[in-house]
């Protein structure tokens, strides 16, 4: 049995999918978390049910890619049942999509999710009356708390009901949705709680909103760098000990294992605490409902650069990983804004770059590590915005606007917080066990052969051949080699430095280290990101992204080196 889950963005479809299947799909408290359909299998009374979680959409007009994905699926795949997930806090607007879904003639169940939040706000919905009007079963649920999930499972097995068809033009459908919502809803009192009201008033304050946002960002970087540091140092010393112990044995195999695999992969894995702490903080901000407020706050500012609020979510997701962030641009209806957002996304500092910053900041700026790291993130954002401004006034000229709803504030559910933090951190660890492992062995091989010493190795030949390009910055061939290998995945820069076993404080000054960090922030996106850009907006733009980002990185690193000389000489 195939069940399609359809609903507006941020109504809790993914939470419901997790509740029905016992899965661990990542959820969020802002629109646009799901941009591709996700499948999860659940066993209900011995019967296997495949649930397909479609991207959140407001209508079936197919103006954006996610609307097209949802409509195409319903038209071509013809699921056995539609679970129309509706936000009980905003029935009228959600019903607009419900009425459009009736035209497919597929059996349907209306799920009134977040019913606990609605009832807390004094909203009472008569589900029997709604069922009579639409002709389909209506089930009240709270996916996060597991309320109504068993009843929903029973209804799924019964197969739902063929809905009464509501046809008409856009205005007619809106009027019908209004009428139905009025008919089945009793609003006793709809007021924000005192706490919610207070938070919104202050967080969205015209003068204080931005300083508070910046304060939270600072807290995030302090948490990521300073609080996680002892754990990082503990892991680092553990891997160092293991690497030197294993490489002490005779033979190429132990050399490869100690100097290649453990030194490379271990060097990257020692930064897992920093990555996990970053994701934990980001997840708290996302699940609490603060992120959409931040988006709303910066919308006016973003519009000056030709972007809009909806671009902010892919950009914030870019702090985690640029690949899903580029996929998240699908929810942007305006094609030119979408292309611009995808192209500037690699300038958002993804978590793979964090180990590079922590390594260099710890060695060169031990007292102000958090400040340096925050500065890099800010510089990345500024360069992204300037690039967007240039693109939107040249290659991608045009006007645009957006509408976004603000979800309620929530105390993050510990299970969802854990799932979100773990699923993102797991991705980093998996990369260490695959791409970085292979690259560590490759780097070990090219640094060991043919001569037996690094100076006579293939790596030295390659690094020395390309090094003149970076001569103005004064980086040694080892550092250049790390940059080349970082093209595969940014963490490989740190892995390469680990395999090369070089004392970077002896071969560069602090200003050169800062320029190097800037270069790794801005230079070519990693292979996976280039593939995502190519898949989403085409080969031509992928080539443009590579050339553009390399040029920007080179210019910025050169300027940083030249300016840095004034301070360090």
């Amino acid at each position, binding site marked *: 049995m195939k069940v399609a889950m359809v609903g507006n963005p941020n109504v809790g479809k993914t939470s419901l999918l997790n509740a029905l299947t016992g899965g661990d799909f990542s959820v969020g408290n802002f629109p646009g978390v799901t941009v591709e359909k996700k499948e999860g299998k659940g066993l209900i009374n011995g019967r296997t049910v495949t649930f397909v979680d479609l991207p959140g959409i407001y209508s079936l007009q197919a103006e954006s890619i996610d609307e097209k994905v949802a409509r195409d699926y319903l038209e071509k795949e013809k699921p056995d049942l539609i679970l129309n997930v509706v936000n009980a806090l905003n029935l009228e607007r959600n019903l607009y999509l419900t009425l459009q879904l009736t035209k497919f003639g597929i059996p349907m169940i209306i799920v009134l999710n977040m019913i606990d939040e609605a009832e807390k706000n004094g909203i009472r919905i008569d589900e029997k009356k709604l069922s009579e009007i639409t002709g389909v079963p209506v089930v009240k649920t709270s996916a996060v708390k597991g309320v109504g999930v068993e009843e929903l499972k029973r209804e799924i097995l019964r197969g739902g009901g063929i809905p009464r068809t509501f046809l008409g033009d856009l205005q007619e459908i809106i009027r019908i949705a209004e009428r139905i919502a009025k008919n089945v809803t009793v609003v006793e009192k709809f007021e924000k709680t005192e706490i919610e*009201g207070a938070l919104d008033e202050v967080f969205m304050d015209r003068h204080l909103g931005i300083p508070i946002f910046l*304060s939270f960002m600072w807290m995030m970087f*302090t948490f990521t760098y*300073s609080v996680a540091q002892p754990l990082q140092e503990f892991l680092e010393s553990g891997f160092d000990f293991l690497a030197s112990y294993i490489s002490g044995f005779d033979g190429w195999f132990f050399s490869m294992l100690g100097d290649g695999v453990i030194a490379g992969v271990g060097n990257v894995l020692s930064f897992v605490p920093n990555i996990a702490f970053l994701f934990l903080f980001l997840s708290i901000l996302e699940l609490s409902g603060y992120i959409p407020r931040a988006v709303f706050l910066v919308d006016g500012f973003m519009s000056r650069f030709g972007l809009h609020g909806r671009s902010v979510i892919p950009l914030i997701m870019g702090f985690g990983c640029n690949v899903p962030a580029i996929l998240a641009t699908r929810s942007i209806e305006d094609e030119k804004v979408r292309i611009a957002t995808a192209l500037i996304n690699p300038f958002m500092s993804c978590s793979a770059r964090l180990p590079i910053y922590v390594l260099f900041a710890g060695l060169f700026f031990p007292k102000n590590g958090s400040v340096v790291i925050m500065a890099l993130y800010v510089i990345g954002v500024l360069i992204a915005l300037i690039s967007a401004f240039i693109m939107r006034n040249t290659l991608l000229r045009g006007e645009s606007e957006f509408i976004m709803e603000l979800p309620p504030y929530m105390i993050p559910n510990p299970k969802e917080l854990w799932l979100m933090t773990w699923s993102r951190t797991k991705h980093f660890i998996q990369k260490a066990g695959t791409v970085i492992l292979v690259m560590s062995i490759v780097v070990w091989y090219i640094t060991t052969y043919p001569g037996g010493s690094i100076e006579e190795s293939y790596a030295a030949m390659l690094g020395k051949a390309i090094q003149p390009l970076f001569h103005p910055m004064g980086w040694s061939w080892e550092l250049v080699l790390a940059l080349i290998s970082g093209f595969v995945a940014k963490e490989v820069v740190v892995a390469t430095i680990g395999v090369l076993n070089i004392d970077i404080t002896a071969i560069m000054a602090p200003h050169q280290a800062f320029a190097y960090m800037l270069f790794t922030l801005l230079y070519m996106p990693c292979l996976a990101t280039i593939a995502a850009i190519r898949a989403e907006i085409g080969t031509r733009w992928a080539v443009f992204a590579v050339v553009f980002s390399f040029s920007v990185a080179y210019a910025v690193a050169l300027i940083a080196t030249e300016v840095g000389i004034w301070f360090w000489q």
Partner: protein
Amino acid sequence: MVLAVAFIACFSLLTILEILSSLNLFGFEGGMIVNSFVLGTITATFLKGLIVKKNSYILVASLIALAFSALTIMVYLASESFSYGIFGFITAPYVVRELKNKKKV
């Protein structure tokens, strides 16, 4: 509002001390200028609450101060780096009282 005045005085002092220590002036040391930005933001939020006479600003400023205090305590434990933001815990009794009294407006 008496409480707001007390919090403004206290957090202004903490902000000044953090600035002095970040600039290594008058024998103070170890602070960070960005921490003083956070403390300054908290002070400004209290101040706005006093000016517009709204408890919401006092409550949210207290919550931020408490969160910042928890963070700076963790930083101190992890890296022995001190910040005057640690003293933000003084808002804890007010936050607890307000959260207990939370009711629909």
